[in-house]
């Protein structure tokens, strides 16, 4: 039997809530039917609520990060900044060959005065280029480097495949025992899609190539292991997961997890590549155990490029069949992921679009003798976006449709309203209405040409219940919020303080956030944009419980019941009579020397999930040089409750910059014959700099939902919009990222020859 939907008795509460009270909707059986009714309850009944946003002082406002001054002044301590008494410096030697075996003679290295320990890291089998094979600890970084160079590594090189082309070739050297090219999808029957394509009014196709991108975190992977023998160790780790460290390290040190403390005071970027100890962490533990001294091991930049992960590249061959109205009726694709020895993140094709279309996608991976890809901000989505948004524009041009109209037609019904609202807002912000090339690229002969492109993104961004937070109020009125969580530079530390300050009626500076230590309450690792939706409800809960506990102590002083109290700025007062009050310090004085401590856990109703965003880019193409100048990027993003508008704006802008860099510059380059990584440095692995950054506008759609993580959505569409804008500007579709001037010039020559 289908349940009747819940019925609302009234749209609005019957009257404004009394002081200290609030209206909630509760489900009640009225005449045997489940009905929602309004009920006036104490403000605190039913647990914490974010409350009305227009009354917020700190949350949902734009506030500078509390750790900003420390970071810009250099006071902030990153793992690589740690200096401990007796500490030694370690370096990692990586394999010079992609495939083969190596024999190590460590004696010469050990003989160098100042070199304290030299260890082999694997059994001598090499199956990817740059795989760490040995580590050296010495009294200075320079001596550790000398030690590395003194290791005699004798390689027996075997044939290798460092590029997908090499790996897929006939008689290619074997990379994976299950085959170099593996089909991961199960369905092999494309007959239905083939039939639909056969009947389509128009067919549009292309093959898009996506390079391997690097996380390029400014702080490389690494740890400082403080273990001097005995039963306790502290690991200062550059990690996205404080709690991913103790267990890993304990195993290496021969300790119990509880005997190892992880410290992540500040970390210099991870973007998905920094979970757990990694080979470098294992090596540091081994060396510390051998020497009984603290070991500092941060990868050098070249090793970071070779052996610390990347975003999988890929190749997408897509074909869309359209009906005569521009609706895609069939999508056939072959999606190949390039994940090195790994298989790469899934590239979700078709991406968002393609409602009601018949879809057949063969999902494959090609293995190469290079390090495995890892998660990277929005895994798989930016790759899928690149080919899918290009396909959409090609469908529009083939059908003579406006670039927005093709999207309207092909978005699913339950997505259309959201994305079209966002796309149209982007269009308004970027000047689409005055743009003359809405349904065909500009093929005129002018020197400087301007084009516009659009793209959209989706992400889950929900939370989960792994966080435990403590709020402490001391007798002197000072307040601390404690959580083991890590701040990746996203503003976690700041909202820990602001949520508590808001709840307790305090200024931001009155709450000291203490995070990044595994002895504090547990917290989830920062992946998948889950940190804020997991942590912030837990912080809110702890703050809420602290307030209630304080009210218990204060109520007798004011001669009222605890639920009659409310907080004002720096005071606690009777809700119905605000003049009857006690100052914060005086209230806390009643706590006694132990102060109070309150715990918080995840509150599902304070979080939500599922974000969508749209972006647009306007570019100028110089047809004499092929130069692409991004003039404008705009973003419209929904994201539930914004914990800190300034931080969310930064997240979006950061995502847009990272996507711009991905689309226009970034690419791992390997020489297929020599088996060498040619650009494992910040000169030749090009990343956008200040002059590449366009005007940027960011708008949020405030929606009534709870907290949702949106950091990954920010990075998904930008490069696709830019590539589409280049095509719109000058007619050249660059199928392989990065979209660079040389490819535009070659494309323009080809267009000229075609006439």
């Amino acid at each position: 039997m289908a349940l009747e939907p819940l019925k609302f008795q009234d749209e609005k509460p019957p009257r404004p809530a009394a002081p200290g009270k609030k209206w909630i909707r509760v489900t009640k059986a009225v005449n045997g039917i489940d009905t929602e009714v309004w009920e006036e309850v104490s403000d605190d009944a039913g647990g914490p609520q974010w409350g009305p946003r227009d009354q917020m002082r700190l949350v949902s406002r734009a506030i500078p990060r509390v750790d900003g001054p420390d970071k810009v002044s250099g006071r902030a301590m990153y793992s690589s900044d740690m200096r401990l008494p007796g500490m030694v410096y370690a370096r990692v030697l990586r394999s010079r060959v992609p495939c083969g075996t190596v024999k190590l003679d460590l004696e010469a290295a050990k003989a160098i005065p100042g070199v304290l320990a030299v260890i082999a890291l694997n059994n001598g089998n090499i199956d990817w280029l740059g795989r760490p094979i040995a580590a050296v600890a010495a009294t200075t970084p320079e001596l550790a480097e000398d030690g590395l160079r003194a290791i005699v590594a004798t390689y027996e090189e075997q044939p290798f495949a460092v590029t997908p082309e090499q790996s897929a070739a006939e008689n290619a050297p074997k990379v994976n025992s299950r085959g170099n090219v593996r089909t991961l999808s199960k369905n092999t029957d494309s007959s239905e899609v083939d039939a639909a394509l056969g009947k389509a009014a128009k067919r549009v196709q292309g093959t898009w190539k996506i390079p391997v991108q690097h996380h390029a975190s400014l702080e490389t992977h690494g740890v400082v292991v403080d273990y001097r023998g005995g039963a306790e160790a502290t690991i200062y780790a550059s990690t996205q997961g404080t709690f991913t460290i103790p267990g890993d390290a304990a195993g290496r040190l021969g300790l119990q997890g509880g005997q190892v403390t992880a410290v992540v005071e500040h970390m210099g970027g991870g973007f998905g590549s920094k979970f757990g100890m990694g080979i470098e962490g294992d090596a540091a533990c081994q060396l510390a155990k051998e020497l009984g001294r603290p070991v500092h091991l941060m990868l050098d930049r070249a090793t970071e490029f070779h052996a610390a992960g990347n975003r999988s590249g890929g190749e997408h061959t897509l074909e869309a069949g359209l009906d005569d109205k521009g609706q895609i009726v069939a999508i056939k694709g072959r999606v190949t992921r390039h994940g090195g020895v790994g298989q790469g993140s899934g590239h979700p094709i078709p991406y968002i679009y393609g409602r009601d279309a018949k879809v057949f996608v063969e999902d494959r991976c090609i293995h190469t003798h290079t390090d495995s890809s890892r998660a990277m901000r929005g895994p798989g989505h930016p790759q899928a976006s690149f080919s899918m948004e290009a396909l959409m524009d090609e469908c529009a041009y083939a059908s003579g449709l406006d670039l927005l109209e093709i999207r309207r037609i092909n978005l699913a019904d339950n997505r259309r309203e959201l994305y079209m609202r966002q796309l149209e807002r982007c269009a308004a912000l970027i000047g689409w209405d005055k743009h003359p090339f809405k349904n065909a690229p500009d093929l005129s002969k002018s020197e400087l040409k301007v084009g516009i492109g659009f793209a959209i993104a989706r992400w889950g961004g929900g939370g989960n219940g792994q966080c435990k937070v403590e709020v402490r109020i001391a007798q002197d009125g000072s307040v601390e919020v404690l959580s083991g969580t890590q701040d990746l530079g996203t503003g976690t530390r700041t909202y820990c303080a602001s949520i508590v300050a808001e709840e307790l009626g305090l200024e931001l500076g009155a709450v000291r956030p203490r995070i990044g230590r595994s002895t504090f309450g547990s917290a989830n690792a920062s992946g998948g944009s889950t940190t804020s939706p997991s942590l912030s409800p837990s912080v809110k809960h702890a703050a809420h419980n602290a307030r209630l506990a304080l009210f218990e102590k204060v109520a007798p002083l004011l001669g009222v019941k605890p639920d009659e109290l409310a907080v004002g700025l720096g005071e606690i007062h009777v809700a119905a009579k605000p003049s009857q009050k006690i100052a914060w310090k005086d209230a806390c004085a009643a706590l006694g020397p132990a102060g109070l401590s309150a715990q918080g856990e995840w509150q599902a109703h304070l979080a939500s999930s599922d974000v969508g965003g749209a972006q647009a880019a306007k570019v100028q193409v110089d047809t004499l040089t092929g130069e692409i100048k991004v003039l404008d990027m705009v973003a419209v993003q929904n994201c539930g409750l914004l914990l800190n508008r300034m931080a969310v704006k930064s997240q979006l802008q950061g995502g847009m910059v990272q996507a711009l860099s991905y689309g226009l510059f970034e690419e791992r380059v390997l020489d297929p014959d020599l088996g060498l990584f040619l650009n494992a440095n910040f000169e030749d692995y090009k990343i956008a700099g200040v002059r590449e950054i366009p005007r940027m506008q960011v708008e949020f759609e405030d929606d009534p939902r709870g907290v949702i993580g949106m950091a990954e959505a920010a990075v998904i569409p930008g490069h696709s919009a830019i590539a589409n804008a280049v095509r719109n500007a000058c007619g050249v579709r660059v199928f392989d990222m990065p979209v660079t001037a040389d490819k535009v010039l070659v494309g323009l020559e080809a267009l000229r020859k075609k006439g």
Partner: protein
Amino acid sequence: MKNFTYVMPTSLEQVVELLPGPRDLKTRDRVKVLAGGQDLLGELKEHLVEPEQVVNLKGVPGLAALTQQAGAWQIGALATLAALEENAALRASHTLVAEAAGSVGSTQIRNQGTVGGNLCQRPRCWYYRHEQAVCIKKGGAECFAYGGLNKYNAILGGGPSYIVHPSDLAPALVAAGATALIRGKKGERTVELERFFTLPSEGAVTRENVLAPDEVLVRVDVPAMAGWKSTYVKFRERSSYDFALAAVAAALRIEGGKVAEARLVLGGVAPVPWRCEKAEKALVGRKIDAETCRVVGELALEGAEPLAHNAYKLPLAKGLITKALTKLATA
């Protein structure tokens, strides 16, 4: 980097005394001179050179001087790129030199990098810069770029090495008719800057210029360019900081709307700054219009032989020539 001894002499006599003998070709890299260090430090860190001794030139007085007399300039080897970029008089008289200096690297690099260092810097080819790739530039048998990933390599003057000369100042100063003052154990000599740079097919393939092991570049002299207009147009893939994919140093003397004299030198396309004499001659007597730009572009790139991945440099260099000439004609 490998350990070395570090010395800071106070006179040029002492500097050349410390250098190897003029015929010590095989052991010349045992001593390296240090100016701004922007290139040398990278070479040391990557173990591309492992000198026993590094001789810092900064103790020698007067090497950073930048002086003008009757429109002609003397530029000391230790003058910084920033000093050139920021000198208003130089920018007025020799626009192309100031523009070229200002296009180098980043602000930090220009504050530290010197004229001598910029002219004598080693190639940026990623095979040359990779310690494991023992290419012909490093005494190996092969230019890996030739049959490899050569997007950034030469389309003119290549073989047996296909590097491009990385200096921005070099094409500008060659176009300005500069000469190099060189000091060696036997005294001073002067070389036209155009002859200072050597093609891999002419000089030693492991070097890019005529400096003997006992020699050091001391000063660049730039003649007056009264009546000339000039510019340096550089194309960078990443404009924040990058080496040139191609660049044009152009100078014109225009009389009555027509070119009376012209200098055209390309950067980023050849192992040396590439003087385009045929194009220069063709410019004389013409006014700058689309047809002139087309003809000059064709002549300038005559003989170009693109490799597998750098054919784009042809339209790019032509496009830059058009931009440079148009800019000078309308300035």
